[in-house]
């Protein structure tokens, strides 16, 4: 049998090649990142070396000589590393359980972890105060009732270094979790099969093959977790001070009190930038020359490990993590939402207040989600493009974009807020008071997490899949849109959710940039916190959780973003 191609009346034309948009895209992206990142950074640098318009190194001298500044640095670095290690230690096994085993209810676990992510860390810290403050903490009260221990005896004390690390890790481990779980989804089963046929037991295969292959994701996640912890203000502000120590951000914060020393604050944030660069360098040093990409298409479904007898233990572990990060804190918040301070009896007063009396709620909700959507969409696009440029290096110097995109992570939100305010409140460029400045701020703040996530995902896509498209005539950008982005589908969605959630829970920089018309939910929560309205805070927190949760689930289900029959991608 021989089937002949029909004689085409007209032979197929060359693919229409217009101008290559890659270079323009590169320059546009570079310009955008420069605007987003370099402007506030330059402001920082400028302020750190000037005093009343004069050049000075006094700020750095103070930084080096003043022990009350040096010590918080040490503590902060220790805390951040602790958070990174704890996040990794909790997230990796959990990600594996969820992505690669038959753990019952693993989809729910995955969704709930996203929920723990929605929680603004300072809200989580407040919830943990309710739970684990040495005297009033519910857990301690419960423990005392159970054991009959003396008043003022405590089982756990959240006001301690360990407590702080724990409370922060609760809300940073989802970074590692999401990245690793997505990475695990993509490890081809062939590679694991090859190991087990040689006699490696499940555990060995996991240790020697599977986990090393998601190393880039693990490192990227830990990197974000560490840097987030390093620059986080909310949780340390609530927990560190009662514990009797400073971290660098609380110290920087006090530098803004009267008389403000923005120069010193700026100088104090620059070492954080240095730490970032070091961590990034360390990451690429660890990854080295090794490969992490396997060409897709040749192997079947990802292998699912049967837990069998281990199921109860695994369930217990998952339940423990979920309890600590989601269930208990939200139970505490729910309790606060339904009761009045110290008064017995349930009440819907707080709900009534938030939804009907508090004028700001509706506007703030609208602003928050509008900004969430636009930042997530734009931010994901920028992160995707940046990660593409960096990993495929089509234009010389593209790797600088990666540095740029990661740099904002090192700037504490409050400092960044000041920088952005100065940049965008010139009479010529008056964005202050509009949602635009918030959009810019969010894009800047969320860029590192989004970029790291996309970059880790790119490590898993073999360039030949792109080349196959280009040789057929698709330009790089078209290939990115038609081949790479769909291949990265889960990561793209995850990044979108990352940015969305990050935007919704961001506080420290935004608080400087919001005005009455551009209020956001997180800012309202903060304001309510100042006036001590725990009930209203809890109501808002729970509402935030529910809505974001719905959005995240929707994003993962949208048929547009991947039909039901799409095979497991790798």
């Amino acid at each position, binding site marked *: 049998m021989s089937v002949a191609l029909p004689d085409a009346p007209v032979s197929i034309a060359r693919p229409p090649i217009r101008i290559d948009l890659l270079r323009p895209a590169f320059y546009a992206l570079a310009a955008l990142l420069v605007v987003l990142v370099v402007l506030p950074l330059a402001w920082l640098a400028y302020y750190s070396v000037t005093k009343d318009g004069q050049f000075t190194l006094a700020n750095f001298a103070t930084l080096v000589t003043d022990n009350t500044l040096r010590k918080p640095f040490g503590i902060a670095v220790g805390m951040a590393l602790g958070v990174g290690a704890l996040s990794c230690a909790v997230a990796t096994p959990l990600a594996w359980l969820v992505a690669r085993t038959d753990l019952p209810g693993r989809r729910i676990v995955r969704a709930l972890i996203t929920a723990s992510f929605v929680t603004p860390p300072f809200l989580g810290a407040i919830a943990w105060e309710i739970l684990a*403050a040495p*005297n009033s903490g519910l857990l301690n009260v419960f423990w005392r009732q159970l054991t009959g221990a003396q008043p003022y005896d405590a089982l756990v004390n959240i006001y301690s270094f360990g407590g702080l690390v724990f409370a922060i890790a609760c809300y940073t481990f989802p970074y590692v979790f999401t990245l690793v779980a997505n990475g695990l989804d993509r490890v081809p089963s062939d590679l694991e099969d090859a190991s087990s046929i040689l006699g490696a037991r499940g555990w060995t295969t996991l240790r020697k093959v599977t986990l090393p292959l998601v190393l880039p994701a693990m490192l990227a996640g830990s990197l974000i977790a560490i840097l987030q912890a390093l620059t986080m203000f909310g949780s340390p502000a609530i927990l560190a001070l009662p514990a009797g120590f400073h971290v660098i951000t609380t110290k920087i914060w*006090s530098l803004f*009190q009267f008389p403000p020393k923005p120069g010193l604050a700026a100088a104090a944030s620059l070492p954080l930038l240095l730490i970032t660069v070091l961590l990034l360098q360390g990451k690429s040093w660890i990854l080295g020359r090794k490969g992490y990409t396997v060409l897709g298409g040749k192997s079947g479904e990802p292998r699912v490990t049967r837990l069998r007898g281990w199921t109860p233990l695994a369930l217990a572990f998952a339940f423990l993590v979920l309890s600590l990060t989601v269930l208990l804190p939200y139970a505490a918040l729910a309790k606060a939402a339904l009761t009045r301070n110290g*008064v017995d009896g349930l009440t819907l007063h707080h709900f009534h207040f938030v939804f009907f009396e508090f004028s700001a709620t509706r506007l703030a909700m609208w602003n928050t989600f509008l900004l969430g959507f636009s930042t997530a969409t734009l931010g994901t696009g920028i992160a995707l493009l940046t990660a593409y440029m960096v990993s495929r290096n089509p234009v010389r110097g593209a790797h600088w974009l990666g540095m740029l995109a990661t740099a904002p992570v090192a700037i504490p939100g409050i400092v960044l807020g*000041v920088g952005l305010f100065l940049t965008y409140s010139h009479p010529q460029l008056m964005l202050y008071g509009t949602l635009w400045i918030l959009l810019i701020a969010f894009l800047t703040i969320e860029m590192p997490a989004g970029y790291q996530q996309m970059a880790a995902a790119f490590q898993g896509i073999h360039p030949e899949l792109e080349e196959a498209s280009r040789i057929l005539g698709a330009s790089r950008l078209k290939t990115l849109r038609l081949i790479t982005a769909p291949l990265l589908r889960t990561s793209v969605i995850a990044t979108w959710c990352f940015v969305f959630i990050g935007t919704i829970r961001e506080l420290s920089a935004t*608080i400087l940039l919001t005005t009455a018309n551009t209020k956001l939910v997180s800012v309202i929560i903060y304001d309510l916190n100042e*006036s001590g309205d725990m009930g209203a805070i809890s109501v808002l927190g729970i509402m935030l959780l529910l809505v974001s949760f719905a959005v995240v689930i929707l994003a993962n289900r949208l048929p547009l973003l991947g039909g039901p029959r799409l095979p497991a991608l790798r």
Partner: protein
Amino acid sequence: QAPAPYDATPQLVAAAQKEGKVVWYSATDVQVAEKLARAFEAKYPGIKVQVERSGAERIFQRINQEYGSKIYNADVVETSDAVHFLHFKKQGWLQPAVPADVAKFWPKEYRDADGQYAAYRAHLSVIAYNTKLVPKEQAPKSHADLLDPKWSGKMVKAHPGYSGTIMTGTQALSQSPLGWGYFEQLGKQKVMQVQSSTEPPKKLAAGERPVMADGNEYNVFLLKESGVPIEPVYAPEGTPLVVGNGAILKNAANPNAAKLFYHFMFTREAQQLNSDVGGLRSFHPEVKEKAGRVPLSQIKLLNSDPARLDPETIKKKYEEYFGT
């Protein structure tokens, strides 16, 4: 020299209505501020009050930034930190104006001699205790009582590095006969340290600590009135008074509306609202304290001089005694 006092004349109202809006940077509790704004809008229809509510330090920082970059958003400003107004005045950013009520009722020490600002509100930094955890008879009665070893590990306190109220209070106490020695000894009592002056009352309400060494009086009022078992203590050594000033900004975009609103802020009606809803103290003699609150006149007050405030020394000494 202070300008002549002014009233809410029909001309002023008309001019203000023409501007249609006033922007108020306020550090008052958001619920109180919003209520005040609504009351003004009800009284003078056609003028919208835009409440820009933030912490005192934020507002200070924001005005500095805005004026630094020649943005004149704010019309009226009000914070709880008296020092800020010395700074504003020095910068020449304030518009002198003396509402009739201020001229008539305000004591001299609570208004600027040049009429650039006046004490819009005040609150105290008090000792308090949880009545459920501490019987009345065992409760501390004075600052000296707090040094009793039995309160070791049972007290909560806010931080002068973060709270203007506590900064002022610390200054007042350290300049009083108690002096720095008091703080030195208090530092050995294993005090739980929190940031804002609003927090210690909350810790008391939650039962985390039975006694607070300092913190906002108005939070204590509000909690108490919502049913929380909490009681303020007015120490015989004196209670620090924290004054919150208000002022019109020179470059206000809505000068007439600003003037009208500024006038309204000091009326009996506004001041009464501050007291009822916000638990704040007022210098208006016609304001009636809610039942159960000890009137200002019966409290020994410790005043502090903002001009002599030296935050650096205070923070340094504080860190020395309390570790943070």
